[in-house]
């Protein structure tokens, strides 16, 4: 699981569905959350949270192009562990370290290697929040 610390920057809500932008210090991460700031106090503006997302929800690309993803981070590959099917790639980004698990096939197809520049891409519907502190 990836866990990046940040602060609630903006919430756009419709019924119980909210698009939440969390400022991480290295760019915002957006998450679609089935709550409102009223129902989930950790979503109030300024609240401190961890942004949580699984390694398997992080895609890697050479450029993000015209895609629907809201969360695209520039990064550099710090390390790689390859299995027979999967590859675990550690990417350093402005928001901190992000771990991605992709297929080894994709890893090879993109010609990725340690030190290479990549984009780490996360679907906003796969991003969860863990509350840390609520502003008084």
């Amino acid at each position, binding site marked *: *699981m990836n866990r990046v610390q940040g602060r609630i920057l903006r919430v756009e809500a419709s019924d119980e569905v909210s698009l939440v932008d969390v400022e991480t210090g290295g760019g915002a991460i957006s*998450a*679609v*959350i*089935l*709550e409102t700031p009223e129902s*989930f106090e*950790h*979503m109030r503006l300024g609240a401190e949270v961890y942004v*949580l997302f*699984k*390694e*398997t929800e992080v895609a890697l690309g050479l450029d993000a192009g015209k895609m629907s993803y809201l969360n695209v981070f520039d990064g550099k590959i710090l390390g790689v*562990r*390859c*299995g*027979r*099917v*999967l*590859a*675990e790639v550690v990417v350093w980004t402005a928001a901190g370290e992000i*771990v991605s*698990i992709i297929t080894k096939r994709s890893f090879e197809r993109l010609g990725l290697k340690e030190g290479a520049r990549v984009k780490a891409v996360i679907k906003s*519907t*796969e*991003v*969860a*929040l*863990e*509350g*840390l502190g609520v502003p008084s």
Partner: protein
Amino acid sequence: MIEAHLEKDLFGASGSFRLSVNFRVDDGQCVTFYGPSGAGKTTILRMLAGLETPQEGFIRVNGESWFDAKKRVLLPSHKRRVGFMFQSYALFPNMTVGGNVAYAMQKKSSAKLEDLLGLAGILELKDRYPSTLSGGQQQRVALIRAVASEPKLLLLDEPLSALDIPTRLELQDEILRIHRLFGIETILVSHDKQEVFRMADRVLSIKEGRIHAEGSPRGVFFKRRFSPKFAVTGRVLAIERADIVFRAFVATGTEILQVILGERDAKRFKPGDEVLVASKAFNPMLLPLFEPFDTQAPQHASPVTIGYVD
């Protein structure tokens, strides 16, 4: 209304601790004591029933004092109008169902007895002996026997934990129905979150003799830091390597789930750990449980859909 303050030194499996609780049950409410075994839940019920004496405190039931350490009041057990239901059915084996229920009645009357048995839907079991009944039927008898004495307080000590899940759900409804019908203040002891959620107006979460959370089941159980909507508690059974990732097997209720972990998470957890298995509400898929999934093309499918063979 019931008000109680109870204090007593208890000796648990992990040493001694002081039971110290303060609580109130409003008119017609069902309140649950929720917590792990050995927390003091059953002791509280026994004190209310007069089977055990607190060292300090008081018990007041609709203004009447049942116990008061300072004023040296101690109403004996048989004078407290309490209905009790335990996990073990505790029916008299040598008495019929009718006999068991009649035994508890203040004023015996066969019309009243038939009314009670009819209310519980067990009139046809009247002349049967407990040994010929299923667990669920025995608990129906135990429930109606508990209210037959017209108690001021109904105490339920894990009454359904020995039953299978469908019977348990049925009996939960039955207890609620009887509780509402008679309007008796009810205290339920349970360590089953689902049961508490379903049955309790208020929950008092108790640990080592202290109430550490109190409120509606929603407020107590969902006071959370995590946003995921698809979450169950469970216990890690095993973590196994699979390619470069790890598979955690997690026991939750009657199911065993599998969760893929990266190496770092795999190192954080070990078998036996209690965990929350969480996913976004966006992620899980719903599949029909019984129908084969794709024996029929969807009604709204476009006629040009190919790959469908009669």
